[in-house]
C-alpha cells in the first residue's frame, strides 16, 4: 500500500494509541508509550507486523501509545495507513472497497 499523504488514527485516551502515518522512505518508526519498559518490544513488533501485512514499504510512522492492547494498536495502524492511502471512512472510496476481513483484520 502506498502512503500518499499524512493521516492519523486513534486518540490519546488511556488504553488507546494515536498513530500518525506520513510519506517516507523505508519504514521510519518512532514509538512513545506509557508502558514502554514492559511492552516496548511487543508494541514495535505489532506495528511492524501490521505494516508488513498491509504491504507498506515506505512510511514515517509515529505511535503515541497510552497502554493500548495489541488489537487496538493493529486497528489504529490500519486506520492511519488506509486514510493516508486515500481511503475514507466510507466502504467504497475512489472506486476501491476497503478490504474488511482481508488486509483489515
Amino acid at each position, binding site marked *: 500500500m502506498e502512503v500518499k499523504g499524512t493521516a492519523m488514527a486513534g486518540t490519546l485516551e*488511556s*488504553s488507546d494509541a494515536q498513530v500518525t502515518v506520513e510519506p517516507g522512505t523505508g519504514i521510519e518508526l518512532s514509538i512513545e508509550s*506509557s*508502558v514502554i*519498559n*514492559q*511492552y516496548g*518490544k511487543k508494541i514495535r513488533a505489532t506495528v511492524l507486523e501490521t505494516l508488513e501485512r498491509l504491504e507498506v514499504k515506505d512510511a514515517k510512522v509515529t505511535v503515541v501509545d*497510552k*497502554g493500548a492492547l495489541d488489537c487496538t494498536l493493529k486497528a489504529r495502524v490500519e486506520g492511519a495507513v488506509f486514510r493516508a492511502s486515500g481511503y475514507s471512512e466510507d466502504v467504497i472510496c475512489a472506486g476501491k472497497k476497503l478490504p474488511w476481513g482481508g488486509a483489515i483484520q
Partner: protein
Amino acid sequence: MINAVGRDIPEKVLQDTGMQVFQGAYARHNQTYKKAAPTVRGIVDPKESKMVDSIAEVLKKCGIKDGMTISFHHHFREGDYVVNMVMEEIHKMGIKDITICASSLGKAHNPIVPMIEDGTIVGIQSSGVRGKIGEAISTGKLKGYAIMRSHGGRVRAIEEGDVHIDIAFIGAPTCDCYGNMRAVGGKSDCGVLSYAVADAMYADKVVAITDTLVPYPNLPASISQVYVDYVVKVDEIGNPAKIATGAAKPTTDVRKIMMAEYCTQFVINTPYFKDGFTYQTGVGGASIASTISLGKIMKERGIKMGLGLGGIAGPMCKLLEEGLIEKLVDTQDFDLTAIESVAKNPNHYEITASEYANPMNKGAYVNQLDFVILASLEVDVNFNCNVVVDSNGMITGAQGGHPDTAAGAKCTIVIAPLLQGRTPAICTNVTTVTTPGETVDVVITDYGIAINPRRQDLIEAMKDVKLPFKTIEELRDIAYSIVGEPDPVEFGDRVVGIIEGRDGTIMDVVREIKPYEFD
C-alpha cells in the same frame, strides 16, 4: 544477600547503612532494645516566651547547620505549605546536606526538587514520594539513599534511634503561645496530628508552626507544650481545599462495585465476622463501596464493629453515627466528614502513629485487627505487594500503613483490578516488594479471588461459598493472556532507594531508572 522475600540486597547497601536484610515479618518478636532520647533544653524561667517572629529566626534559634536532619508531618496532604516554607528559608541561608525525615511527601512539595539538585537536601526518609521528587530520586539526583518506611516503621526508626531528628517542624491548625497544638478549630484543620507525636517526643528541637494562634491553654492538645521549644505564627500553613475534600461520591464503576461485593461476601463468610469485629479499610472506590455494602449486612444481622481503625473517611464515620461501629480510632483524616467527626464524636479517638502501627512497642492497634482491606499497584504469585514503585520502575507511591496493617490483621485482603490499562496487577514478580506475601491472605480482582495457600483455614472456610475462587497463578495467566507477558523493567546499577521493612530491615532496593532503548 538474598532476603526472606527473595530479593538480592547488594553488599554495598548493607555496608553503607549497617542494616540487616529482611528475615520474616515476625522475626524481631521478643527482641529488646533501649529507646533513643532527645537532648532537651529545660525552660525553667517562666519569663521566657516561646513565640518567634519568623521561620528564619526560629531556624537560627534552633542552631540550624549543615548536615542536620529535620522532620515534617503530612496531615495537610497535598495542601501542605510547611515543608516548602521551611526549606525555602534553609535554602536562602545556604545550608547544605540536609536530610528530610517526613511522615510522607507529595506533589505539593515539587518546589524542593531544585534543592535536591543543588545539594541542599541530600537525604529523604519518608513513607513515600510522588510527583517530581519521585522522579528526582528515580533518576539519581539525590546524593544519599531515599529510605521509604511504613507509618509504623517510621516511629520505630525514631524510637530505636535509627534516625535522630535535630529539628521537628510541626504544622498545627491551632496552637497557643506555649506550644499546645490541636488539629481542629483553625482555618487549616486536619483532624488529628498522629504522625507528628513521635517527632515532638524525640527531636532535639521542636517548632510549632500555626496560622491560628488561640488563647492559652489549647486543650485537649494533640501535642503538649512540654515537648515544644518555639511557636511561629505564619499567614497560612496550608490550603484547606487540598487538605480535605468533600466526601467522595460512591463509585459508579461496575468493576469496582463487583470487587467490593466480592470483598464483602468474603468478609462475612470468615469466622472473624462476628459482633465486636475490628476492621480497617482504605479510601479507594472499591474500599468505600465495600464499606457501604458491609454496613448494610451488619445492620441486617445486628452485628456491630467494635473498632474501626486507620486513616478515616466519611463512610466509616457514617457507620459510627448509625451505631454500627462502637469506636473509631484515627491516625489520619481523608475528608471533611472525618475531620468533623473526630472533633465532635466522643467515640472517635485520635491516637499516635506509634499506638497505631509501631512494630517494636509493646503492641500496636494493628495487632488487634481482624480485617484490613488494602489496594496494591502489583501483587505477585507469592502474594508480595508493591505500593511504592510503578510498573515503569519510577518511585510514585507510599508504603503508608500497608505493611503494618497486613502484618497485624488476621485477614489481610488486597483489592486490585486485574489490569490497569495494559499493566497487569497480578504478575510473576513485583517490581519492588513493599509488603511481604506471608502477611497477605486474599487477593480480590475483577476476574476472580485468590487465597494465599498459607491460609488453609480460610480456604476451608470458603469451600461452600459461591465466589469465583482461582489460584494466584491462574489470575496472572488470565492477565497475561489479555495484555501479553511484560518484559522485566531494566534498571541502572545504582541503588537510589531502600524499601525498609517495618522492623528496620531491608525489604528491597530501588535502582536508578534507565532510559528505554530498543535494541
